[in-house]
């Protein structure tokens, strides 16, 4: 049984902080099929279109029939752990620091035999579930998990290396004035965060929910305005060295397209909050987080961007908003590359219209702030990178994958 994680003790200030490392992460273009699935939390393997063979590792020709039609498809992840061993030494700097490290061979019911990391609660001969995860460097890896969830299984040190579990970590919610920010504060408090910093801009302006927000356990209200470089810098100077997860809840949602908008004042605000705001946060908090990617069990671990799914394809009814979201997404992709060397994950969470005042006249289905917050926490616990929340987001993703041009025309109305 997994030893439950203990609340981390205060750091010895005389000790050097361990530098982040990540395992070898070069993958072939074909193998990035696994990256795609792992990033979204799906278990997919190449499955031959011609002879239905399921195989691993990724190849460009079917090992059975030499077909080249080899899409990644969701397959049954259950199997049996045939054999295991414990690695006690390694030439890889990342693993050298982490041995002993158990690995094992799993025979999947679907066919292939796969060499993978194994969870501490799994023993040779047992039934297991293989899970596709991203490792510290963002490369896809397999881990054999117990057949059924075991107590404290998320606290397993191997598994925790592959996830961004908020438990015992310190999170910064950048804007607590909104229903989404407040739902997020609640969800991270419930998820066992040590401190939930919640940024509030313009504290002289009252906002709904402020009394309830202050009552949430372990919430600390801090001054933060993502449109003000000085405010962001000051907050990072104050708390940047102990923030493990940033969740950027700063939003700017207004209906309207490009042509009918009267001037660019609102568009500037949108870009200031959504694009420059992200850049300010990245500059102020990013370097310290990247330096703390291996700082014990409560290392810096994730930067979470909340994005409209219309960052991926413009929705003219909210066209200017979509454009600002697209800018934010592009910046988030850049940040992902920049934080990678620190083992800090950038998680992009896409959603359709929210059940909040700025989407008042949009018909359901809509995503409630509580549902969004729950999805964010779960995705961090699973260590995902690309998350789609709700029916609209899933629908847009599917239609985009099938035919982007069709989606563009359909969204044009």
């Amino acid at each position, binding site marked *: 049984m997994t030893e439950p994680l203990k609340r981390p003790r205060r750091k010895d200030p005389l000790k050097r902080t361990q530098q982040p490392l990540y395992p070898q992460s070069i993958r072939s273009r074909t193998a990035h099929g696994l990256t795609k699935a792992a990033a979204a939390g799906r278990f997919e393997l190449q499955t031959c279109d011609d002879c239905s063979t399921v195989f691993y590792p990724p190849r460009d020709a079917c090992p059975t029939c030499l077909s080249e039609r080899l899409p990644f498809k969701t397959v049954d992840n259950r199997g049996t752990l045939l054999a295991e061993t414990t690695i006690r030494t390694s030439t890889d700097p990342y693993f050298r620091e982490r041995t002993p490290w158990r690995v094992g061979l799993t025979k999947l019911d679907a066919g292939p035999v796969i060499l993978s990391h194994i969870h501490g609660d799994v023993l040779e001969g047992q039934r297991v579930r293989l899970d596709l995860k991203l490792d510290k460097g963002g490369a896809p890896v397999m881990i054999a998990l117990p057949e059924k969830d075991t107590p404290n299984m998320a606290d397993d040190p191997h598994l925790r290396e592959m996830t961004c579990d908020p438990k015992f970590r310190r999170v910064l919610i950048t804007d607590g004035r909104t229903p989404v920010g407040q739902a997020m504060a609640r969800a991270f408090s419930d998820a066992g965060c040590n401190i939930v910093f919640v940024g509030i801009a313009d504290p002289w302006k009252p906002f709904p929910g402020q009394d309830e927000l202050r009552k949430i356990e372990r919430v600390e209200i801090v001054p933060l305005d993502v449109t*003000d470089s000085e405010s962001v810098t000051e907050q990072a100077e104050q708390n940047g060295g102990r923030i493990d997860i940033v969740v950027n809840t700063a939003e700017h949602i207004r209906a309207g397209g490009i042509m009918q908008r009267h001037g660019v004042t609102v568009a500037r605000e949108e870009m200031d909050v959504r694009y420059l705001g992200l850049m300010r946060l990245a500059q102020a908090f990013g370097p310290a987080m990247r330096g703390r990617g291996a700082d014990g069990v409560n290392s810096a671990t994730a930067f979470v961007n909340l994005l409209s799914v219309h960052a991926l394809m413009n929705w003219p009814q909210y066209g200017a908003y979509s454009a600002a979201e697209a800018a934010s997404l592009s910046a988030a992709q850049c940040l992902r590359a920049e934080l990678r060397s620190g083992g800090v994950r950038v998680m992009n969470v896409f959603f359709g219209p929210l059940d909040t005042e700025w989407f008042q006249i949009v018909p359901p289905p809509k995503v409630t702030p509580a549902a969004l917050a729950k999805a964010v926490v779960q995705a961090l616990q699973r260590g995902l990178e690309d998350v789609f929340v709700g029916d609209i987001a899933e629908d847009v993703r599917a239609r985009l994958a099938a035919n982007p041009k069709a989606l563009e025309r359909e969204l044009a109305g």
Partner: protein
Amino acid sequence: MATTPASDLLGMAQRVASGAIKVVDLTQTLTQEFPTIVLPPEFGQAAPFRLEEISRYDERGPAWYWNNFSVSEHAGTHFDAPIHWISGKDLPNNAVDTIDPRKFIAPANVVDCSAESAVNADFELTVPFLEAWEKKHGRIGAGEWVLLRTDWSKKSYAEYAGMREDGAHTPGPVPEAVKWLVEERDVHGFGTETIGTDHGQGHHFNPPFPAHFYMHGKGRFGLQCLTNLDQLPPKGAVIFSAPLKIKNGSGSPLRVLALVEAA
């Protein structure tokens, strides 16, 4: 050697230099945190003051420090030109760049209602109050500023903005008082310590926002977010308030100085 007697103007400069004339800064420092007027969120919003470094003796400019700033015409201590309001939109020379620069220097009457405002955030400046003030301090002259001292500038930002569920609660004039100042006293303009020249609940007056409507309708000016009004005498101060020369500008943040005879 006999010194040439100074002209009035140079004499004034000498008295400023010697401290015989005191210079009182009526300006709030432009900061990111200072409250800006809040409209319902579906309206366009006045941008608060923001500062972005261009360089600070670093790789962006090794030997120099400078910033870009952005701000609305109506943030911080600022000047309102007649063109700001629909009632003044067609007047001649109604924008900050076309106003006669002589008008940027004018005497001030400082109406102290700090005691009344301290006990009542919704204090209304009325004609009887102004008449009582005149009995004590003398008639408000044509072409003179009327500045409302409420000590609002001394409050915390939350109290200063006074935002509650039914809007802002800050002192200000009732419509009759503004009309009276413009029509009966021919004043130069109206200045306050609060976020705007109007009462916090001024949108419920008739006409709404009377300090804007009547003052700007008659080509008069506004000053708001003033501070240090408690250092001015009821009469006798001279106000220097030249806004930035923004093309067709409706107002501008500015440095407001008062010259006062030292006691």
